[in-house]
């Protein structure tokens, strides 16, 4: 393997020139998103710089407290994003989502690091990046699933009312929608798995290869993380939707979709 090329700041800064290309295309197509693009890029730069500094500090001074705080921040942000995108969720549904994301993310991460990689769970160099990849994908999956569930419920209001009036049990009424939402949530992950290696070389693998890891080793990590992501998305979405939909009706089988937004 060749030596790793270290990026100096000035060379790195040249990558921002590509944003000018995007801005030109946006202007040409009269898509008014230049501000969002600049804001997004600035935010990303700031967030990644900060997390780079924090991670460097944590790796150099490994402490379970720092690591736990970092994980907590990661989970909280993922939960916050899902909840802020789906504003109509009631309080119990929100708690179920938080528990599903946290439990499935932590459980799969622990299995990945401790069992598959064989590293100590106190090693932040493995725990934090793996958790980050799992949480990021889980956030998107759960968000998609919950959004899809609410959209279907909204679109199918007449069907829900008719079946409810006919004396159909709420669980029987909602389960087809829950299954559909679950499918919507996990399909992108499965599609990524199908296209990976042919259509795209994924970020984690590319990163490892660029930093000098043998492609054969990078591939093993990539396969492992893809399966871990799929499992976490599936578990978190299952937990959120299958336990969450039960908060949409009360003991009198009356449907309460609105929630305390």
């Amino acid at each position: 393997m060749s030596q790793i090329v270290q990026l100096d700041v000035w060379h790195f800064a040249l990558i921002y020139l590509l944003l000018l290309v995007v801005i030109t295309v946006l202007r040409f197509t009269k898509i008014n998103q230049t501000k969002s693009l600049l804001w997004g890029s600035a935010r990303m730069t700031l967030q990644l710089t900060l997390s780079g500094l924090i991670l460097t500090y944590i790796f150099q001074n490994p402490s379970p407290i720092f690591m736990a705080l970092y994980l907590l921040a990661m989970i909280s942000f993922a939960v916050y994003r899902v909840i802020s995108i789906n504003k109509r969720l009631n309080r119990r549904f929100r708690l179920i989502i938080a528990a599903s994301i946290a439990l499935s993310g932590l459980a799969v991460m622990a299995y990945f690091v401790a069992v598959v990689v064989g590293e100590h769970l106190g090693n932040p160099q493995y725990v934090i990046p793996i958790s980050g990849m799992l949480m990021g994908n889980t956030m998107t999956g759960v968000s998609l699933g919950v959004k899809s569930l609410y959209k279907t419920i909204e679109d199918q209001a007449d069907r829900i009312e008719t079946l409810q009036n006919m004396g159909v049990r709420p669980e029987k009424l909602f389960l087809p929608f829950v299954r559909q939402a679950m499918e919507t949530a996990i399909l992108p992950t499965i599609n990524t798995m199908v296209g990976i290696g042919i259509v795209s070389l994924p970020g984690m693998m590319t990163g490892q290869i660029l930093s000098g890891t043998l492609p054969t080793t990078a591939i093993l990590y990539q396969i492992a993380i893809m399966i871990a992501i799929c499992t976490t998305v599936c578990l978190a979405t299952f937990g959120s939707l299958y336990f969450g939909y039960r908060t949409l009706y009360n003991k009198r089988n009356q449907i309460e979709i609105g929630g305390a937004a």
Partner: protein
Amino acid sequence: MAAILTAKNLKFMDFLRFPDLSVERGSAAFLCGPSGTGKSTLMKLFNATHTPTEGTITFDGQDIAGMDTIDLRRSVLLAGQKVYLFDDTIRGNFEQFYAFRGDPCISDEDMREFLRLCCIEFPLETRCQPLSGGEKQRVFLAVHLSMKPQVLMMDEPTAALDKKTSRLLLSQVKDYCKQNGITMLVISHDISLVGEYADQVISLSEEACE
């Protein structure tokens, strides 16, 4: 005649107060009154899809607050104002509605009979999506009628029908209900239909709205 449904001191949220009323067993009762007086809401209170803020409702002498709501909704069946049919054939619709309730579906012969009662003698293989509003409404009513409840509540069942079909439908459905001991509770804005088919008229006035 004994009452099958009663409402006492009934209030829903802050804006609807209902007079004390009772629906006589086996009768064809019509619920009348201007828009916004809570006719549809009263039906939803009767089948416990809504809960009153105050007051008591009894079904068959029993306070519905203590009843299993699924059993209640099957006994006091509401064919709502918004018609919903699956994107399927007429037969497929009967089958799907029965499957959702967890009940065995009725025979083709029975389906045809209920469709005839509701003035829609179409083949069972007819797809429902292309049907007109009035045709869909009649298929929808036929499915509800076939479920043989103790009380059949119909919220504007003839809203999408012409006068002739409305009369034929109400007369056939009323005869069927009389023969089978089913109490009818109907919301209708058509005074002539009320005069012709009502055994009992329950009027809700605007004074009930606060």
